[in-house]
């Protein structure tokens, strides 16, 4: 379309480069901020480049705040959520895609329906349930529901299972496999890209989650990274430039996942547009 109009290509480049700068320069500025001394960080008017460059901010924040404990909690929540979602949602999705059972289509419509309903009205009763189960101030409420299937994940995995030819199923059936074995041995290994997309999205959502940890966690030893850092913000116990370094540390794991699995992020985003 654009071949005859190189001008539009130039305009395209210009637009994308400006936009990329708008996206990236604030991050760069934040990285520079994380390397400043307290004095330089607080100075007005601000200077862009750190001078001297204090790499030790990164080790210092790790030692000063309970960073290792925040990180551990975040890892526990994220890993248990990812494993739970992959197992439960794919199993439920397999049944919806491949098995015939009473009310299957009605139930699936309900799954789609709950995907559309925002979770606002359920926040308070869920809190009460977990409180009555004695799970307040523990990490359990942050990952336990992921083990009972999530609508978007079920939807995504069902799409993947539907695309697999029936022959595989028939062959496994002739070999005497029951549905659970067919799901585990035949279908699951064939849907690795969808599982990867799901893993990446669940990890991202849980790693960055703020509302639920704020509601459920009380003592600092249970805090996850986002709210651990937040709890120190503006309290003047830890210097601000150290917290900037801390916040950027919390970005590293997700950045690594993103760099290695960018295409799954893109796939997942497209799928969220399909529903």
């Amino acid at each position, binding site marked *: 379309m654009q071949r005859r109009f190189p001008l539009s290509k130039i305009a*395209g480049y210009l637009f994308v480069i400006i936009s990329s700068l708008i996206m990236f320069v604030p991050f760069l500025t934040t990285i520079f901020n994380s390397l400043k001394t307290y004095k330089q960080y607080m100075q007005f008017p601000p200077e862009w480049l750190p001078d001297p460059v204090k790499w030790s901010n990164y080790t210092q924040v790790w030692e000063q705040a309970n960073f290792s404990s925040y990180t551990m909690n975040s890892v526990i929540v994220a890993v248990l959520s990812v494993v739970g979602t992959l197992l439960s949602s794919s*199993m439920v999705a397999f*049944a919806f895609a491949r*098995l015939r059972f009473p009310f299957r289509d009605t139930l699936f419509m309900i799954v789609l329906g709950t995907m559309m309903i*925002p979770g606002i009205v359920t926040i308070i009763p869920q809190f009460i349930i977990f409180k009555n189960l004695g799970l307040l101030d523990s990490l359990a409420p942050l990952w336990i529901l992921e083990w009972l299937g999530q609508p978007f994940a079920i939807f995504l995995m069902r799409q993947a299972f539907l695309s697999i030819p029936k022959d595989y199923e028939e062959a496994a059936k002739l070999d005497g496999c029951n549905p659970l074995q067919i799901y585990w041995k035949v279908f699951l290994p064939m849907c690795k890209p969808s599982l990867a997309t799901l893993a990446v999205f669940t990890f991202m959502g849980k790693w960055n989650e703020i509302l639920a940890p704020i509601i459920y966690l009380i003592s600092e030893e249970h805090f996850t990274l986002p709210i651990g850092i937040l709890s120190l913000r503006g309290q003047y116990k830890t210097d601000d430039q150290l917290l900037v370094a801390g916040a950027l540390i919390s970005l590293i794991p997700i950045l690594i996942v993103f760099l290695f699995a*960018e295409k799954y992020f893109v796939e997942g985003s*497209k799928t969220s547009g399909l529903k």
Partner: protein
Amino acid sequence: MLELEKQLKAQPKAKKRKWLDGEGRWGLLLVSPYLVHFIVFVVGTSFASLYFSFSDYDILNPPKWTGLDNYEKLFQDSLFYRALWNTVYFTLLYVPAKTFLALLLAVALNQKLKGLKLFRMVHFLPVISSWTVIAYVADAIFNQRIGFANAVLAKFGVAPQSWLIDEGWVIPVLVVVAIWKSVGYMMIIFLAGLQGISSELYEAASIDGANAWQKFWRITVPMISGTTFLVVILNTIYSFQNFEQIFVMTGGSTEAGSTGGTNNASLVLMLLMFRQGFSFYKMGYASAIAWVLFLILLVITLIQFKLQKKWVHYD
């Protein structure tokens, strides 16, 4: 949704077979985790929430039925109207601007540009960051003391602004940051939509002498309107429930009562619910807020579905 209905119909209807009972039992067994989820954590909690909204409930004592009290109080609460207006104001600024920018970006990226992958990744960087990280990125620009926005304004002789602690600025600044954070995500959705437009349309338009601008408005915009509709719906729903950003950026700490900006200038409905429920333990009142917010969202979404017939182009 149409696609799905087709798929559902395309699946073979249950035939009478010997092992149907067995398969049916397996099916129910395998979906049982979600059944528990649905019955307990969706249906159960929804009814509980409805009941709480008609009760006085402080968690320590069992809920006491008070009829419409919570709703009456809510509709007389000036903070409710403040929060409602702030929510609507945020949405009115956020949704159209973000949708338009995401579409523009997608169009720009939908050509064979060198470094495409890098551009895409840079736009995804804020998407993958938590609001805690973004709070510090926003600080670097909009903090009234250390941020660069004021330093740049000073170069042009403009007086420093107090951005997030200024009653007038706070929502526009929050909107700018919110758009900046997630425009890359919507861009991907638009890109997927753009790839579905046949290039023949553009070629025909070129032959007729249309320029890029005309092609954008006459071909791209109408052809992508289905995706635009979806993006508008998703973002409206998100915007009405925006909690994390506003909590993180206009609070400063995890102490629940301290959020909502100067004079509640950034108090939105979700924050009001959070404050009433989890700071004051007025669970009944908070549930009423949740239901009102839910109903408002439902009505807006239904209106949007009605209006789509006027502007969404289906072929």
